């Protein structure tokens, strides 16, 4: 399996406050929100990468950077070995696509389903539209002339997936595609996504806060905490015996049908403006050591394709 995408020391900082001309003249220091801080990852072709983390951990930012909706502040991106630059954007956008969390707001409410789906093509090709709409499990003649408000939540998400498939992308970023759906509908959409992935041999970046969904669909898991990767490895290993203390705490807070209890971690997620010194998880970590308060741990390799950012595993 070859590498399809890689991120090298990617950072994405946003300005926390608006800076007016007077602020610039009197040199008020810039305050940044560090949404994504020094993220490096290499993604192999044909896999489903589940990206999990709490809100504000940078998972959506990572997805947006990868589909070139956001330009990173610093760092380099490589798509199929080629460096991603502004001039390359149009070319890359033909091969990557994104599905958003809320289909009702990511589809044009005035457009008919057939027009929404045909838009990425640039011209109207009924047989191609029909094929892709049937692929996502909708009846073409029934939905083609409808607007998104006439469809149910699950159907609208299917239309959004159909639109993303139209260009036959090699990489698809799915940002919480099932979070807005009911459980019984979520299962239908997840099954559809699994079928499509194996049929079209796509690579998925599956962003979700739902660990159970990530466990079902992904081959590899990336755990983000406050803009940094804390653990990356095969799903079976990361979710059955997590190494990083944060991953352990995250898993013990997920309500499941096996254990009738949850064990919440103490404290809150740190502010992305004032990050704690050293490891960002140290104020909440039960195994905190002296070193953790001073130095930030790098990603430490734990066997093939398994990395964890924690001094415990040095």
């Amino acid at each position, binding site marked *: 399996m070859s590498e399809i995408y890689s991120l090298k020391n990617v950072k994405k900082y946003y300005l926390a406050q608006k800076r007016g001309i007077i602020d610039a003249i009197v040199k008020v220091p810039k305050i940044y929100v560090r949404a994504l801080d020094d993220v490096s990852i290499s993604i192999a072709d044909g896999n489903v990468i589940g990206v999990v983390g*709490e*809100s504000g951990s940078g998972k959506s930012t990572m997805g947006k950077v990868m589909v070139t909706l956001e330009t990173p502040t610093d760092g380099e991106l490589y798509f199929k070995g080629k460096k991603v630059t502004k001039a390359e954007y149009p070319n890359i956008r033909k091969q990557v696509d994104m599905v958003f969390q809320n289909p009702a707001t990511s589809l044009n409410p005035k457009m008919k389903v057939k027009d929404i789906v045909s838009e990425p093509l640039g011209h109207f090709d009924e047989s191609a539209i029909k094929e892709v709409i049937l692929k996502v499990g909708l009846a073409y003649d029934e939905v083609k002339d409808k607007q998104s408000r006439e469809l*149910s939540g*699950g159907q609208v998400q299917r239309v959004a997936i159909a639109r993303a498939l139209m260009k036959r992308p090699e990489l698809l970023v799915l940002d919480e595609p099932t979070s807005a759906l*009911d*459980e*019984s*509908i*979520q*299962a*239908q959409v*997840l*099954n559809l996504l*699994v079928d499509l992935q194996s049929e079209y041999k796509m690579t998925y970046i599956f962003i979700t*806060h739902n*660990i*159970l*969904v990530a*466990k*079902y*669909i992904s081959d590899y898991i990336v755990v983000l905490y406050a803009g940094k990767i804390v653990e990356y490895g095969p*799903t*079976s290993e990361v979710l059955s015996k997590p190494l990083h203390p944060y991953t352990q*705490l*995250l898993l*013990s*807070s*997920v*309500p*499941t*049908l096996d*254990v*009738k*209890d*949850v*064990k*919440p*971690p*103490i*404290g*809150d*997620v740190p502010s992305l403006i004032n990050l704690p010194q050293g490891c960002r998880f140290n104020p909440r970590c039960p195994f905190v050591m002296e070193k953790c308060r001073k130095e930030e741990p790098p990603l430490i390799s734990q066997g093939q394709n398994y990395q964890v950012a924690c001094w415990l595993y040095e």
Partner: protein
Amino acid sequence: MLLSIKHLNVWYNTVAGKYKVIDDLNLDIDQGELVSLVGESASGKSTLGQVISRMLPPVGITSGEVILDGVDVLKLSEKEMTKIRGTTVFMIFQNPLNSLNPVKRVEDQLMEALAIRNSRMNIQMTVEEARNEVIKALASLRLPDPEKIMIRYPHELSGGQVQRVVICMALLLRPKLLIADEPTTALDVTIQAQVVKLLKDLNKDTKMTIIFITHDVGLAYVLSDRMLVFYAGRVMEQGQTVEVVKNPLHPYTSGLLASIPSSPKHTGKLYSIPGSPPSYLSLPAGCKFAPRCRFAFERCFQEEPSYIKKDNRLIRCWLYE
């Protein structure tokens, strides 16, 4: 018996017509119970919460009895209802920011809640004592620096903190019945676990009765002692949480449980209930779940099952007659 609901029916009267959103609901809850209402969106679970706290929108029409602490709340006037809101029944919503006044400090709002409880229970308290009690309540919710949080406005706090402030208000008012309508849906899973733990402790330590409304069966399993499964405005199954989850009887409950992902994709496809929930405007005849049910037979399409009792459970399904 703290809450006793008998033959409750609720209709919404809209321009599109009058349609029934709760059909013949019966429910008895004792003091100190932790009951969860589970169902997909638009299954009627929130409507039930709104009926009990009398916050139904004006289009809602009710019939039947909802006896809360000895009074039928459906027959109370708005003025009488205001008197029991807060200290008898308290409701927490999904978006906690909507439950707090945005232009008042947390301290003023919590002190106001305490003042209301004191006046209803005829307790005399100096301002200093009241302040100390509020700080104690905030600290018991494991909120760091309660004094700092007191002088903040709601928008200055994080989602989890605001939800804990609302729960703190419940702690101060000591309601007999706490209705929590998806209180953790907008929160992260770690904060959700903190809130769930808090509600569980509150129920154990103060014997507060809690009705927990959620779409997450896993969460309901972790939290509650008893479970009601809603579908299309009907309670399809009712019983002890552990029994319902470990041995679901109604086909809808078993379908819902099976559609929760629990193992990786290579072990097989996820089970999914075919079709989608019906619209209230065009409900099928007979059992409302029949068109999606894999066990449906002729009778299901003609006659709607009423409550059938089996092993301590109430099920609306002809399979168990």
